[in-house]
């Protein structure tokens, strides 16, 4: 019986490896398609959602059951924001990787920085989301994920800078 279980595990692992390896062929692509996949993330609204003073304010003014329900909603909304930021980061990782190959050292360096920060943001999102879910079950657990907002700000700045380097004649607003 145990042998059959391992045989099945082996076959499932084989299918998974083939599926994951196929995904590697998707590298590169159309900039317009990638851009269309970007999701707007309002960093200020996100900061507001994770603001501890705001939470304290609500705790003082609302009855306990109502506060619990609102706090839960706020955390779920924060998770939505973090996923959107993480998905944008995945797109920016590809943009950064492509920019890294550029012959212009300024663009290559900007791409490198964007790539590193987008990667850091995505890694951080993977760490923070389980903590936020834990925070829904145990409201006192888990620190607020301020680093996501900061990291998102940083990569936003780097995307704009990269755009300026790649399209200097169009100016900052049209760079991206």
């Amino acid at each position, binding site marked *: 019986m*145990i*042998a*059959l*279980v*391992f*045989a*099945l*595990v*082996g*076959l499932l*692992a*084989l299918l*998974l*490896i*083939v599926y*994951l*390896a196929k*995904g*590697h*062929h998707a*590298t*590169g*692509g*159309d*900039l*317009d*398609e*990638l*851009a*269309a996949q*970007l999701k*707007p993330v309002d*960093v*200020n609204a996100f900061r507001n959602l994770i603001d501890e003073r705001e939470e304290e304010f609500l705790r003082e003014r609302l009855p306990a059951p109502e506060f619990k329900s609102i706090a839960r909603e706020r955390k779920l909304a924060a998770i939505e924001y973090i996923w959107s930021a993480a998905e944008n980061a*995945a797109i920016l*990782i*590809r*943009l950064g*990787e*492509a920019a890294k*190959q550029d012959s212009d050292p300024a663009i290559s360096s900007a791409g*490198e920085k964007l*790539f*590193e920060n987008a*990667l*850091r943001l*995505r*890694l951080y999102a993977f760490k923070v989301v389980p903590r936020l879910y834990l925070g829904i079950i145990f409201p006192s657990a888990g620190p607020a994920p301020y680093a996501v907002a900061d990291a998102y*700000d940083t990569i*936003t*700045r780097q*995307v*704009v800078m990269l*755009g300026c380097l790649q*399209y200097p004649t169009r100016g*900052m*607003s*049209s*760079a*991206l």
Partner: protein
Amino acid sequence: MFFLGYYYLWIAPHLLLAVVLVISLRRGLHRQLPIFYSYAAFELAQFLTLFTISRVSPFPDTTYRWALVLGMVIGAFLIMAVIFELANDLLVSRSSLTGVLRPLLRWATAALLLFAAIACAILPALGVQYALNMFQLLDFTSSLLQTGLLLSLFLFSRALHISWRSWTVGVAVGFGINACITLATAALRAEFARSGFIAVDITQMAAFHVCVVIWLVYLFLPERAPKLAGRGLEKSQMEFWDQELERMVRR
């Protein structure tokens, strides 16, 4: 006819491996994954040794079995080293990953080893011969470790949307397919004992054949540099990034 097929599956993958070795040495790819080339050279040497022992009558069966077990131990260590080399390739110039991937691989190895030890204790023994039992243990443990680690690497790169170089992906896919099929068949070998030996051997040899063919195919695939084409972002996206920037400046 059966023996012809058996010898084909034994000899052909090693001939193709020699071709892979020669082509990639000519292209200088050995500098990219030096441990992989050590493994390939060792695999060829092991094949020549085992083939000679099996064809030359003065050697008893036990010599062949122990040579096989010894080769398997060295081969398993070399494949593990290749997997860590592939992980290293994934980390090159990605400093933020180093701190995450290294401990992840360390923990995955430790957990897989523990799991393999428990599984080996549960799996039925093949027989009274020490060499045979050692062979089963090694076959199962090494394939379980390889499958687990390669899956971790693929999942990690997929979750973070980072890409490997073509040749590196090819090496990883080849090893992955071989390890998965070996894992599945090694477990079945324990279940069916001697009656399933030939079927398991043939399946594993076929898996290695597929693995070498994948390496050969990836040698000829062009390197996929991450390039992007298109007109640029839409106006709405430009405005969105601009707004983000303005908010940041105002703060």
